[in-house]
């Protein structure tokens, strides 16, 4: 007698629960995205790659791509370095402290990006807290401004996106059984070995999610660079905004938007692949 075949997942009525979300995404995301793609590939004489050829033929645009990627990578790195240990502290904290920490992480999300960016202007300026502190400890001889510098932009953006790194890592860490590390220790593994061989592979899914969130948001941020570094530092987002809003050049705007999307997808998919490889080889 043949074993009964497993029912197709498509026949499971639970799948229907995804229909509202699917409709929402198709209407408000997929269709505009297709329109965007079409605009960048359609010229006066039909289908064309001319906008892309023109874009990459201009060395200035390569610089814009590098600005975009460089800042996004730095912001992601800073968030990871600060967020990874913070996620452990959050996961291992007592109930009261954990609630306080979660509130401290989540509450700033309710404050608008513009407000935060203005607050960072105060912190980063010549007589701001950071400058005064660094002069105070003797690292700087005289007050300097970080405002309207790439460092200032990275610090400001990392602050705004930090919760999106901490929370995915925290959600994974809190599921890890702490006795695994104790077991490793009883078997003679040194702390660094236990971290690299046990903890790091187990937290990689959270790390990859955090990187995907923070990188995607940093690579496409528009208001934060506008306010913290100004018009002298162009990114793909600011170039896209300018093309649509000021130059009224929909084709250039669509082209830069598609390039931005491709970069973001490339890095997110690449980091997931890398994480899986590292996870399987650990």
């Amino acid at each position: 007698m043949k074993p009964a075949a497993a029912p197709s997942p498509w026949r499971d009525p639970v799948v229907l629960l995804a229909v509202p979300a699917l409709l929402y995404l198709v209407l408000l995301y997929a269709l505009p995205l297709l329109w965007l793609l079409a605009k960048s590939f359609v010229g006066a004489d039909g289908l064309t790659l001319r906008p892309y050829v023109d874009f990459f033929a201009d060395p200035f645009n390569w610089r814009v791509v590098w600005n975009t990627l460089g800042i996004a990578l730095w912001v992601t790195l800073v968030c990871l370095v600060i967020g990874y240990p913070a996620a452990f502290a959050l996961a291992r904290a007592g109930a009261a402290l954990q609630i306080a920490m979660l509130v401290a992480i989540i509450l700033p999300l309710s404050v608008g990006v513009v407000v935060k960016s203005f607050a960072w202007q105060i912190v980063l300026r010549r007589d701001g807290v950071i400058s005064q502190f660094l002069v105070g400890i003797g690292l700087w001889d005289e007050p300097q401004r970080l405002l309207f510098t790439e460092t200032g932009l990275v610090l400001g953006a990392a602050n705004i996106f930090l919760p999106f790194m901490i929370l995915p890592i925290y959600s994974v860490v809190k599921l890890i059984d702490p006795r695994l590390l104790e077991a490793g220790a009883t078997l003679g593994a040194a702390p660094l070995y236990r971290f690299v061989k046990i903890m790091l592979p187990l937290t990689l899914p959270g790390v990859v999610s955090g990187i995907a969130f923070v990188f995607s948001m940093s690579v496409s941020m528009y208001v934060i660079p506008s306010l913290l570094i100004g018009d002298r530092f162009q990114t793909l987002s600011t170039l896209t905004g300018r093309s649509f809003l000021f130059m009224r050049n929909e084709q250039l705007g669509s082209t830069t938007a598609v390039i931005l999307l491709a970069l973001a997808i490339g890095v997110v998919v690449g980091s997931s692949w890398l994480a899986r490889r590292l996870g399987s080889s650990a």
Partner: protein
Amino acid sequence: MPNDLTTFSRRRLLAGTAAAAAAFGGFPAIVRAQAREIVVGGAANFAPWMNGTVAQAFEAKHKAKIVYEGSRSLVNLEKMQKNKDKPYLSVVMMDDPVMILAVKEGLIEPLTPATVSNLAKLRPGTVHMDGMWANYLQPWQGIAYNTKALAGGFPAWADMYDPKFKGRLVIPSLQNTEGLANLVMAAAIETGKPIEQAQFEIDAGFKKIKTLKPNILTICTQIPQAMNLLEQGEAWAIPSLFSSVVIPREKEAPIKMSAPKEGIFVGPAGVCLVKGGPNKELALALIDMLLSAELQDKLQPETFAFPSNTAAKPPVGLAADVKVHNLDWAFVAKERGEWVKRWDRDMAM
């Protein structure tokens, strides 16, 4: 015998309701048809004085009302385009570059001294394209500075290139209307020619303004952010801001507006007659009033703008013989896209 007063039939009820609805619904329309009023399109931030001083003066003189629709120049243009066959706006106030688009699309009709008598009394350069539109009150552009940092003021545009301002100047982006004055002034400094000629030599302007980079704190598109930096003292000066933004803040913060010795620039604030718009006589009367010395003097304390009528008093704080520069906005509109691209490359960090 049935009592007619107390007996309702469904038909009578429906007929009565319809009659009542027609009476109530029709009433305002009748009033509107009889009232003398015109609809005026303009900038949203003009609403306080358009609905106040201008509306009151117009009603007193012409016994007619102004319905003011405040938005943006491009939105007003769109309203004119969409209603081209049956315009409902009579008068529109827009920036000069947008006026050029309206002329190209045949949306406005010319003003003449015969229909608008004050047209003959305006400063040279304020009546455009054979009277298609005229400038009325123009916010003027000078240099805003922090009085704590620069007690001696900011006497000349050329001073902004002084190395003592390293990292202390904010300049508006070329995307902003304000930003153009700096580029034109740079061309004048580089070529030594009068601004009216130098504005067409933009290569020289780019060559000069690139040397300003060490002095630039930031190039901004958000004017409130720039004002914030100036008021807090992080920026010492913002060359080429509008008087209407700076002067109202002079009492609240340590900032002041300077009219440099090379002169001031005036903003492209124009008023035009909508082609085929309703109540043409009233529309022309309003335009004439906006161009009159009497109303321009009256609006001065509210707008801090420069009058276009030669008989009007210059704004408080400006010398009577101050040099006033108008830009050629048709030239700007034609070239600006390429200038912005070059600006990105030349002024990048």
